[in-house]
């Protein structure tokens, strides 16, 4: 568990009443609180790193808290320090500044002010952590996108090598082995393409389009060969206004991914229905009116325990595929300020419901 989930606080204070009071108050605020009455006792608590914050009384029976501040900073720069003191002289103030003390209180102090100071430090720590996590993910995303991109040259070399071999190899057994290598190469390419699409930052380019033209284009591009061309797309637009400002290139991929899933799930004569309705509800805080698009198929539908997982990266029930298709759907729709959900099982097959604001603004 993250140390900021149930933040641990160490109170180092030789006055047992203050110590106990602080412990009770802070535990009510959700902190896990340890106490120590002296420098020696504080040291027995083990690693400083596990504490989100340490509250230090300046004057302790076996020395001043300056010693502990030095130790905390030497071992772990991350822990917040709050000093409470009966005497604020220049030396102690300067020393507190040097050790990047988060706050400084003169006794007697108002516990509410201490609480709000601690809460503020916690908010700042959490924000800092989110920012560094986002930065880390962005770097990983760029790295993965880079790897996926660079691998295209290698995959191209394999492909041209295969094509060269095919010119000379006529033994049927060898030909079928070469076909398998080619198949694996194509799978690798698709996987890397999907990973790149998932990892790369989404920069939407909005255009005013009719949504039906986007899904029709996607439908035309979806490979229907596996179903012997028997797959059908039925539309009920219900006179809904489908003019939306969207990134049609990205949205086409959304429809393509959903269609491909349906076609893979439906064994015979797949029928995919698209039904539209006006949706007054706001999407992700956007007040713009929205259009609701339900995409249903006549396949087996989603198992109840799979419904929550459908949008998780790498979740798949298919033998082939990366399990990133629906994650990309979610990410793209949310980047448009919309939302996507799995139907509650009212219809027999799978149902994916997209709510898309007509005037989307890019959500980072």
């Amino acid at each position, binding site marked *: 568990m993250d140390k900021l989930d149930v933040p641990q606080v160490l109170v180092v204070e030789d006055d047992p009443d203050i110590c106990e009071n602080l412990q009770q108050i802070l535990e009510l605020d959700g902190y896990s609180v340890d106490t120590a009455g002296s420098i020696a006792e504080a040291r027995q608590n083990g690693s400083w790193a596990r504490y989100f914050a340490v509250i230090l009384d300046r004057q302790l029976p076996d020395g001043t808290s300056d010693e502990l501040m030095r130790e905390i900073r030497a071992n772990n720069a991350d822990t917040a320090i709050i000093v409470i003191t009966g005497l604020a002289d220049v030396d102690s103030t300067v020393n507190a500044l040097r050790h990047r003390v988060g706050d400084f209180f003169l006794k007697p102090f108002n516990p509410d002010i201490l609480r709000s100071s601690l809460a503020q430090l916690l908010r700042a720590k959490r924000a800092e952590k989110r920012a560094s996590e986002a930065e880390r993910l962005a770097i990983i995303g760029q790295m993965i996108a880079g790897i996926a*991109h*660079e691998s*295209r*040259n290698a*995959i*191209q*070399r*394999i*492909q*041209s*090598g295969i*094509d*060269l071999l095919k*010119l000379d190899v006529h033994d049927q057994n060898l030909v079928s082995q070469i076909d398998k290598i080619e198949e694996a*190469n194509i799978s690798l*390419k698709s996987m890397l*393409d999907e990973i*790149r699409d998932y990892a790369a930052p989404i920069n939407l380019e909005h255009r005013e389009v009719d949504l039906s033209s986007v899904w029709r284009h996607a439908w035309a591009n979806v490979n229907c060969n596996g179903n012997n061309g028997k797959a059908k797309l039925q539309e009920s637009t219900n006179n809904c206004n489908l003019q939306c400002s969207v990134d049609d*290139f990205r949205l086409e991929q959304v429809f393509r991914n959903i269609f491909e899933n349906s076609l893979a799930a439906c064994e015979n004569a797949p029928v995919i229905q698209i039904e539209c309705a006006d949706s007054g509800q706001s999407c992700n805080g956007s007040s713009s009116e929205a259009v609701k698009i339900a995409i249903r198929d006549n396949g087996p539908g989603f198992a109840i325990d799979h419904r929550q997982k459908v949008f998780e990266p790498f979740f798949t029930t298919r033998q082939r595929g990366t399990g990133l298709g629906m994650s990309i759907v979610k990410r793209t729709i949310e980047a448009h300020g919309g939302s996507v959900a799995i139907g509650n099982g009212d219809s027999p097959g799978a149902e994916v419901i997209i709510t898309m604001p007509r005037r989307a603004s890019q959500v980072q």
Partner: protein
Amino acid sequence: MAKSSILLVDDDRDMVDSFSRWFKRKGYRTTSTYHPMQCLIAAANQKFDVAVIDIGLPDMNGLELLGELIQLERFPVLVLSGISDPKIQSNAIELGADRFLVKPVSMELLERAIGDAISQSHFSSLPVGVGPRHSGSQHGGPTNGQT
């Protein structure tokens, strides 16, 4: 009848070499280059029916090379690149690339694209250094000119 001549450029030598071997086996004439300057020198001094270029090349932005080749007004230029960014693709097409193919492609597909580019090209069998692009061009029909 001799098949078309192809100018290839990519900094991935193995790739260029296997392209070259494949096309030669199919009866094409190919010139392999691995650097934009090498490609430009070849383009200025020899006649080709088509060029297949990468745009992620060392020392020169691939789009610059594309621009230079288009300026020569001699033959259609196909881009074959690992870059799938639609913006760069449309930049390349606006600059005058005949087609933009994203790696990997099968050799058959590349051959078809090359055939289409040549047959739909308005460049005639102009002798070296003759232009400009829109005068005296002939539409349709593959160019089988001998270098």
